[in-house]
């Protein structure tokens, strides 16, 4: 291995493994990546230990791609170590970038989750009300489990992040673009979203030509009970598609599957709060009289605004979805 090749690390936190699969989906192109960089750390595929990372000089790793949100204390420790050792930290995928779907849990606390999972669920048979503990005395000795935080955090709420790669998961093309952007002579400005586009999903959508300049509808519809015309812009059919406010680069995968964009690539440049932008956009296309009854009628099919506009970004929202706790216990 040539010494001049930049060192790259891949790491995962609270995630589903889809971001790992996304890298694997580079398929034979992984071999091309290896020509450009040395992968020094990738628990799913490369045999490097934490000690090896600790032994490295600060800043020795060129770039660490970290996917997953922060749910456990150990995840925080590990990303802090990688921060020290890396020149660039890249938040890879929606969970790391915006909290992702697991951050919807921020509407509840640890206690509520534990109660359901270990007690209330209809299949659980747990008369002694056993719950997992961080330290457990068993007959033979002591066992440990990590601490489950009350809230899910984005990577940049824990360490400084240099770049973001969006997507749930990022597509192979976006991943490749991001790597090339990092290796280019002219680095993107710090804090940029890299690998994806600066235009919206609509610009890549095959149905965009059926979308007029100004979309106006009289009410929203529920996908569950609505027949969809596969050749017509979903917004015109009353389906809340978030394509207009979502960053493109995915190739409009969901609209190509005849389903609405749900916003996994996050906001376009300059937007502070994705959900805020999305909800104001949806409001702007409603053509109803400014009367309370008429408006409520028009939006009666949007019963879950949080799940609609913050599906992937609750942890990053200005609201954060925090719970007012009854008695401390916050991290």
């Amino acid at each position, binding site marked *: 291995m040539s010494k001049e090749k930049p060192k790259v690390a891949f790491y995962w936190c609270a995630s589903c493994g889809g971001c790992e699969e996304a890298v694997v989906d580079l398929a034979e192109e992984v071999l091309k990546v290896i020509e450009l960089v040395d992968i020094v750390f990738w628990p799913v595929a490369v*045999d490097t230990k934490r000690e090896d990372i600790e032994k490295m000089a600060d800043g020795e790793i060129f770039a660490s791609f970290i996917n997953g949100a922060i749910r456990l204390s150990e995840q925080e420790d590990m990303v802090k170590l990688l921060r020290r050792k890396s020149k660039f930290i890249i938040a890879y995928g929606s969970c790391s970038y915006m909290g992702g779907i697991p951050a919807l849990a921020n509407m509840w606390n640890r206690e*509520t989750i534990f109660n*359901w*999972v*270990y007690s209330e669920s209809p299949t659980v048979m747990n008369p002694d009300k056993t719950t997992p503990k961080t330290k457990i005395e068993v007959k033979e000795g002591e066992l440990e*489990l990590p601490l489950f935080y009350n809230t899910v955090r984005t990577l940049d709420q824990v360490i400084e992040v240099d770049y973001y790669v969006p997507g749930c998961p990022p597509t192979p093309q976006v991943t490749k673009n991001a790597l090339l952007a990092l290796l280019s002579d002219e680095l993107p400005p710090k804090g940029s979203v890299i690998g994806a586009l600066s235009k919206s999903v609509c610009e890549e959508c095959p149905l965009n030509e059926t979308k007029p300049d100004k979309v106006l509808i009289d009410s929203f519809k529920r996908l569950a009970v609505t027949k969809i015309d*596969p050749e017509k812009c979903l917004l015109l059919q009353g389906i809340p598609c978030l394509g207009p406010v979502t960053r493109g680069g995915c190739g409009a995968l969901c609209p190509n599957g005849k389903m609405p964009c749900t916003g996994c690539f996050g906001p376009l440049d300059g937007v502070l709060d994705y959900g805020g932008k999305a909800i104001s956009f949806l409001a702007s296309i409603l053509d109803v009289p400014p009367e309370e009854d008429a408006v409520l009628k028009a939006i009666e099919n949007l019963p*879950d605004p949080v799940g609609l506009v913050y599906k992937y970004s609750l942890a990053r929202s200005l609201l954060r979805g925090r719970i007012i706790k009854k008695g401390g216990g916050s991290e």
Partner: protein
Amino acid sequence: MSDKVIVVDPITRLEGHGKITIFLDEAGNVKRAYFQIPELRGFEIFCRGRIAEDMPIITPRICGVCPTAHHTASTKTLDDLYKVKPTPTAEKLRRLMYNLFMFEDHVLHIYVLAGPDFIVGPKAPKAERNIFGIIKKVGKEVGLKVIGARKKAREFMTIIGGKTIHPVFGLPGGVSKQLSEETRKQLLEWADEAIEFAKFTHDLFKKLFLEEYKDLVFSDAYMHKTYYMGLVDEHNKVDFYDGKIRIVNPKGNEYAKFDVHQYLDYLGEHVEPWTFVRMTFLKKVGWKGFVDGEDSGILCVAPLARLNAADGMKTPIAQEAYEEFFEAFGGRPVHYTLAMHWARIVETIQAAERIKELASDPDITSPDIRNIPTEKPSVGMAVVEAPRGTLIHHYETDENGIIQKVNLIVATQNNAARICLSIDKAARSLIKNGQVDEGLLNMVEMAFRAYDPCHACATHSLPGSIPLVIEIRNSKGKVIKELRNT
């Protein structure tokens, strides 16, 4: 503090990876080995308040390795919730997607995760025990075949399901997208290759299991007599997409056969304080602790269990392989955990054959892909066979289809107790008088790898590949040795 210092590598703990702690007695023999899964995300809670049709979008995020299993279980739960049947074409498209998924997911496990133990060898140098080692041993051509077969299947899945990692096409009463005639033809052309590839894989591994690694596969260190559970069709044949849940006892006799709506009568979940995963057991038999046998409610799911619980396969070549499998082991049921690998290949053949059958059906390109629900939603339950075992989704909603309650019984949860048994037994068999061989790591890993466990699913939290750490503690509880695979 010093006598309590536990040398756990935060790499493994960080992700809540599988963790094994082995306690030794004073003579250095194993008192007990614990297999812990340290993480949780709480999907069942945060799905509350969501609209029902979001569930097939949200629940695949439980696991990015088997998102199609969750997507399909969720979509079928919506059918049940809205009391609507998918159109015949829609059901065929879902089955097609599902068999493509089973095929590529099994291939991933056979070659990338478990295959190296058999093709390269269980005690081969660690650096070679991977897909690259396989390529080295059997040739680049085979390696490219593996990568190519998976890639092609996943390309078709993107066309059919919108996305491969986290599909989107499932809706109550059908699917969102019609299949084009062009894609159908391409699929049909490729299906023969897929069948050939599955047969090739079968021949390759059968030889290894029956010759080179016979002692290992037939070893008591990897054997437990438990109940087996799997979905069967109306002829009691293995069906991945739908059917009745059938359970056979350790003698191989039918213990129960029921519709998913009765799952609460049969399945319970046990909680231990030292792991986040809930462990499924047979309610009526009862939780008797970590023991096997007919009096213990511990059960087994996934390929071996599906073959044990069924009377045969749905397709002709897979049926031949099924018969050969049981003949090799001396009849049904088979209790050897490592036979799981062989069973997985039998299923891969069925998946490939089903892809061809479905792609041969001209009706699959019909535009009639959706029945629009007209009933009010209330309760929905559905089951599929995920690659890693029986998967049940259960939702309750208000009359507007807003989720009120969610219960998920996920494949690896059903195997969780048996995996603990396997780890404990393998450790006891392999560690004697304090002698801990480095080869132990892989031999113990093989005990759980056979299940292809997915702890992302099991705890609704983790990635599918689990770095493993093994701690050996002396009788004082002190860590005397630590082994890990990352």
